[in-house]
């Protein structure tokens, strides 16, 4: 159980939360026009006459957006609706050129599904997906360029969006956070959305209500629009739920309203009361015909599906012997998982995982590098681990070699070769060094024999030093212990 219970004066309250997530679809051109979706162009350069809502312009649907939505739907274990319809959502706003948004209403392209999330107590929970529908994004209004004017850029107007609506299944901020991370991981695996909440390519609306423990049905909910990080979503749920409890405990009532989350305080404030709610006047989009998908089409998308994080994780545990924790960390990001698999190929996967999550990530962090820019390639990381497992170098040397690899991007085998770092496993050579050390320190030999056992480490250290770190420490250890018995 990871549900959040808020203890009030009169009752215990549980949190009820559902999410609506807008994901920008990865495609070259917009959903209903041939303008580019490229981010960061000059104002109004990626705009077609359709996007600008010019008279007589008509939408034409981008096949890629349909493909991406179906793929995402499959990734959410959801029902793909072979029949769907577009509808107009009517409202006036400066960055909505047509005066309506083309969306889907009664008949979305994807129906019910579910996503399994992993919780901190080691349990999992299925979060229900209500639907996924596709729609067009709005442009951008910029309010801070002049005191008396707003500036409108339509580059984003018409970019494809998937709106994913969950069932009100979240009972705590933690569950919502885990879901968002999972969803982000899924869409990134699928390549349907880049999942960057801070850049706005994934945006979250949060619906929160509370009810007394044991109570049936739902109480009035409030919606918080455009909360733009996982952390803020969790904060918004917690603080909004607490606000509801306080209002109820003081005999008040919660009104259905739209609220704004303020990241600086973590609190929410009212944006729009219900009586000022929009009347969107949805009706079927007469400029587009119904979208009908064939079984063949859906099968084709299915054939393109990649292994998703849950399946990959299970495989890493089962076939490669990773711990559940390591597998989860490595699989959250597809690039990491792919890198790992490449590195682990033919080598000791558990050791590769240790290196990856230890020195390797630390190195990327320190150098502030993305995985794709890593100087150490997956192959070379694998080779390095192999050098250790096959006793060519010892662990200490491996760390030195890794440092060189991180600087030069070099091949560890060559580095070991060139610098003569191969460890000494020849017992004769090691024995000579051991004898030398024992002969040079009679006092310590006496003390050891008198019971000062911790001096063993000193002897080992002296031998390693004489071997310039190349002696196999296990052999050295064993030999000294034998000789001083």
């Amino acid at each position, binding site marked *: 159980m990871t549900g959040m219970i808020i203890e009030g004066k009169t009752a215990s309250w549980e949190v009820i939360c559902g999410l609506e997530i807008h994901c920008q679809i990865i495609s070259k051109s917009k959903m209903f026009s041939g303008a580019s979706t490229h981010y960061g162009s000059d104002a109004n350069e990626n705009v077609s006459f359709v996007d600008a809502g010019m008279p007589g312009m008509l939408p034409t649907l981008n096949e890629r957006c349909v493909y991406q939505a179906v793929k995402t739907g499959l990734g959410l274990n959801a029902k793909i609706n072979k029949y769907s319809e577009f509808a107009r959502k009517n409202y006036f706003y400066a960055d909505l050129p047509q005066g309506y948004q083309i969306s889907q209403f009664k008949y979305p392209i994807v129906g019910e599904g579910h996503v399994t999330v992993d919780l901190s107590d080691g349990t999992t929970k299925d979060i229900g997906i209500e639907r996924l529908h596709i729609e067009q994004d709005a442009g951008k209004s910029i309010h801070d360029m002049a005191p008396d004017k707003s500036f409108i850029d339509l580059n984003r107007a018409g970019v494809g969006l998937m709106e994913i609506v969950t069932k009100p299944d979240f009972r705590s901020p933690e569950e919502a956070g885990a879901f968002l991370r999972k969803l982000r991981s899924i869409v990134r695996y699928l390549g349907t959305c880049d999942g960057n909440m801070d850049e706005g390519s994934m945006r979250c609306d949060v619906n929160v209500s509370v009810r007394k423990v044991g109570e049936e049905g739902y109480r009035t909910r409030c919606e918080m629009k455009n909360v733009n990080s996982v952390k803020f979503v969790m904060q918004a749920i917690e603080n909004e739920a607490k606000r509801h409890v306080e209002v109820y405990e003081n005999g008040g009532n919660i009104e259905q309203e739209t609220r704004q989350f303020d990241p600086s305080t973590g609190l929410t404030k009212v944006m729009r009361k219900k009586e000022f709610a929009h009347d969107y006047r949805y*009706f079927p989009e007469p400029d587009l015909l119904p979208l009908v998908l064939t079984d063949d089409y859906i099968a084709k998308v299915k054939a393109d599906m990649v292994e998703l994080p849950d399946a990959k994780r299970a495989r890493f545990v089962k076939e490669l012997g990773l711990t559940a924790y390591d597998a989860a960390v490595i699989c959250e990001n597809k690039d990491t998982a792919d890198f790992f698999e490449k590195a682990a190929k033919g080598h000791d996967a558990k050791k590769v995982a240790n290196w990856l999550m230890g020195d390797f990530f630390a190195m990327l962090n320190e150098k502030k590098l993305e995985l794709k820019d890593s100087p150490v390639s997956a192959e070379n990381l694998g080779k390095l681990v192999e050098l250790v497992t096959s006793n060519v170098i010892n662990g200490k040397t491996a760390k030195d070699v890794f440092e060189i690899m991180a600087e030069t991007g070099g091949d560890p085998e060559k580095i070991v070769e060139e610098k003569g770092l191969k460890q000494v496993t020849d017992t004769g050579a090691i024995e000579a060094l051991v004898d030398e050390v024992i002969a040079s320190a009679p006092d310590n030999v006496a003390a050891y024999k008198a019971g000062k056992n911790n001096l063993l480490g000193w002897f080992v250290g002296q031998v390693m030093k004489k071997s310039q770190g190349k002696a196999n420490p296990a052999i050295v250890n064993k030999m000294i212990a034998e000789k001083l018995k």
Partner: protein
Amino acid sequence: MTKLTELTIAQARDALKKKEFSAVELTKAYIDEMNDKRKYNAYVLETPDVALEQAKKSDEKYAHGTDGALEGIPLGIKDLYCTKDIRTTACSHILDGFEPQYESTVTSKLLNAGAGFLGKLNMDEFAMGGSNETSYYGPVVNPWSKDVPLVAGGSSGGSAAAVAANMCAAATGTDTGGSIRQPSAFCGITGIKPTYGRCSRYGIVAFASSLDQAGPMCKDVRDCAIMLNVMSGYDPKDSTSAKVEVPNFESFLNQDIKGLKIGIPSEYRPEGLNAEIAAFWDKGIEMLKARGAEIVNISLPHTKYALPTYYIIAPAEASSNLARYDGLRYGLRVNGEHLDNMYINSRTAGFGTEVKRRIMIGTYVLSAGYYDAYYLKAQKVRRLIRQDFLNAFEKCDIILTPTSPVTAFPIGDESMLENPINMWLNDVFTVSVNLAGLPAMSLPIGLSHDGLPLGLQLIGKAFDEGTIFKTASALEQDAAFRKGLK
């Protein structure tokens, strides 16, 4: 010799081919005609320079033998069609000075076929109206007017008047509820609204997307066939345009109609139907019968509900289609303190009374709590109306009806102004066709006792304009309307 401007497209094209006169000469003749007849207020923008420039190119094409289907033919274009760099306003104040930076698909096709554009034709504001009186540029005067100025019909009133008065060889129209057929009937010309999806709507200012169709308005049936062939065809830019082959419509003219089953719907002869109109309808029936066609009585039982259905669906779509006119990106802006004030000020100043009325009705029937009672109900009745036609076409090949229950009435008629529904009732014979998406033509059949043209309507099966052309050419020959004009 006949005046150049009296020639049909077919006649002018043949003469141009034979170099009897040049395209420039033909165009100049029309420009003179336009100058002489400004009193009809048919054009809201004249573009003689554009037309002459195009005519020069056409003459070159004729010289090289590379002439297109409409090479050198000067046309008038309804102001609803977006024409690149040529002001397009849908005859609304809200589109003041708007110069599209793109060309509609239909006008592109006409240009590619060699046609020249004489100017933009007057119409009801955003095609909402049946008398051309809602135009921001004032009403069109019907060239058939005698003492009292009469309406030219609407919404394509400028197109009908310009064709009737020889101010262009032919014109484009659009038809959402009768906007090609009714003015054609009022002005004694021939116009066809093709099947929904036959012509691309891309670049035509939208009124009601599920009903709007482009079509030609011409001096005769053959010209309609020639022009419709150029205007038709699938367009990937319009998702509702149909991937259906376009036949050579001219090939249907003069075909034998013996044995053709002509459906006569009893519901189109309500009690109190104007006796003269009923008589001309009977005359049309007799003409077809005399040529061996079989007359079949049919029933379209939901006819009476077509108007209220139309006046829910069309305003609903219009209320949404016209939301883009907000003073932000083009057209009229009346500033306000805040964004909402700017919207309200611009739209209140920019739209006329009828347009506002329909936007409000459309907004209401779509709004929360009323959608099911009005919009959804209308969509269901729309299906029944369409089904009526499908049933009828089991028994007949084509349907013959009057085009309008009235002839052209005076501009400013009080009974029409007093109650908007009175004006809407004039669409009674035309709206069903749009609701069902079918093709229909109006052609002149004769003159009333007071000398005003009367039209009959031929309704075909979906994508069967061919049978309309076949039947219309027979009726046209027997009625000999144009011969009577001389």
